[in-house]
């Protein structure tokens, strides 16, 4: 397999844009990523598009806005993990030597309100069991009982996230919030309040990747290398194994993430102690805590305390979700993964401005993006 590098990344701001089409959102993200990379669109040989709610052929409808060059445009769907899945496929297609340059795109336009996560007629839906915040809340209640964490510790994830979002011009929420405000917001599923739920969002993201041996011709100012990855769809855990007992629950269960991150670290030749900056799937506030543990950044049971003590802030020793994460940057489900890649690119190239971690000396970045259907872990090196 060949070495593959990221040459550029770009976003359309995340937020609510009722007057903009998917094409409007996607075009701007792709244009920004291409400009950032120095790769002209006609040089792109293949595009992988993560998107969930848009109709048939949405990927081509957006990518062809840049020109009709006849390249394959491949639509990928893995719910909230769609555009890291698109990234992985693009990476494999370049690493294998089939293509030299590839474009990764993610976009989404969403309705307000709770996501419908299972067929509306399933008994789980009818009985009110298919409720996304509730699946995080169930794990959070168990976590509090097991490790003595408090509801305030989960709420603090949102406070920290909003603080980072306030520094990100592409974030949906660019305003700080207080612990009191988070705790006093409407209860959704105990202990998760409204401000601990990621919003529904419109937005788009794009990333340009290239075979390392071909990247010189683009005179890229800077790049990062794809160092490791792992993907899984949620292994069944027998009774007594792991914490997602009886039900493969890759999104909230950290034991599956533990297994996959080991694979990714091994491929990258690093350990969790080498990671400088991390993006995790905080669709709901407990996500950051569970994933910090699942990824091995903190020992099991210490994630809540790590957040409470500020260790996951931009200035902390294990900075997580430095762009505001899903909670504040926003969560346009198909676009989230490639936005995570975008933030790691900014951090590892020293271009994260006021959000910059470790004085611009960050060398290793880690991503965890999950969706109904699986988990993607990605490791990048400067």
């Amino acid at each position, binding site marked *: 397999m060949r070495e593959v590098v990221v040459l550029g990344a770009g976003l359309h701001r995340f937020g609510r844009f009722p007057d903009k089409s998917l094409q409007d959102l996607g075009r701007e993200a792709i244009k920004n990523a291409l400009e950032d990379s120095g790769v002209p669109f006609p040089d792109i040989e293949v595009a992988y598009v993560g998107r969930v709610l848009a109709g048939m052929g949405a990927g081509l409808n957006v990518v062809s806005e840049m020109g009709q060059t006849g390249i394959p445009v491949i639509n990928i769907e893995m719910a909230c993990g769609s555009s890291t899945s698109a990234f992985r496929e693009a990476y494999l297609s370049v690493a294998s030597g089939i293509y030299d340059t590839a474009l990764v795109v993610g976009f989404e336009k969403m309705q307000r309100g709770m996501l*419908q996560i299972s067929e509306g007629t399933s008994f789980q839906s009818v*009985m009110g069991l*298919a409720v996304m915040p509730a699946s995080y809340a169930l794990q959070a209640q168990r976590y509090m009982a097991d490790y003595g964490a408090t509801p305030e510790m989960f709420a603090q994830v949102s406070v920290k996230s909003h603080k980072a979002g306030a520094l990100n011009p592409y974030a949906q929420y660019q305003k700080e919030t207080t612990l009191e405000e988070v705790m006093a917001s409407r209860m959704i*599923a*105990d202990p998760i309040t409204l401000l601990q739920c990621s919003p529904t969002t419109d937005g788009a993201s794009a990333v340009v990747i290239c075979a390392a041996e071909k990247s010189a011709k683009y005179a890229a100012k800077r790049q990062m290398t794809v160092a490791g990855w792992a993907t899984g769809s949620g292994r069944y855990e027998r009774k007594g194994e792991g914490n997602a007992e009886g039900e493969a629950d890759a999104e909230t269960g950290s034991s599956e993430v533990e297994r996959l991150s080991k694979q990714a670290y091994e491929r990258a030749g690093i350990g969790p102690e080498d990671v400088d900056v991390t993006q995790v799937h905080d669709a709901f506030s407990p996500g950051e805590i569970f994933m910090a543990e699942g990824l091995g950044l903190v020992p099991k049971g210490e994630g809540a305390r790590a957040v409470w003590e500020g260790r996951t802030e931009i200035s902390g020793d294990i900075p997580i979700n430095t762009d505001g994460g899903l909670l504040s940057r926003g969560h346009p489900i198909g676009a989230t993964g490639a936005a995570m890649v975008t933030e790691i690119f900014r951090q590892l190239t020293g271009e994260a401005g006021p959000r910059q971690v470790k004085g611009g000396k960050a060398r290793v970045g880690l991503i965890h993006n999950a969706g109904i259907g699986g988990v993607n872990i990605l490791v990048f090196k400067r």
Partner: protein
Amino acid sequence: MASDVTEIKPRMVPLREGMFRMPDRLDMPAALLGDRCRNCGESFFPPRVFCAACSSGEMEAVEFASTGEIDTFTIVRQQPPNSVMVPPYAIVRVRLDDGPTVQTVMATEDIGSARIGQQVQLAARRLMEDESGNIVVSFMARPIPS
């Protein structure tokens, strides 16, 4: 001759046929009907055709105990789409005494008993009425007084 006798008592129908042992009356125990893998012994509700743990297709039908312990819970306070449950209601994850871990809701009046470690019984409860006026019944958790 066709009779035009009107049924006086509404009929009880399960939310899904074959989901649990339907008792004669509401509030009686409702044992879940699942299956167990003959190859590796793992048990499932709802039943599967192939085992999730070992992929064997040798599954046998099993009726599980209707009792268990709450492993975790939450109170849902916002109306989810497509559900007949009216918030606030409690979702509980129950470790059945001899079977798998399942999720269900607490009976409405028992919401205050949703706590980790609480012993519960799955009972037949009215979930809604269908368009023919039948009482649609499902299994819900009720606390077992200690």
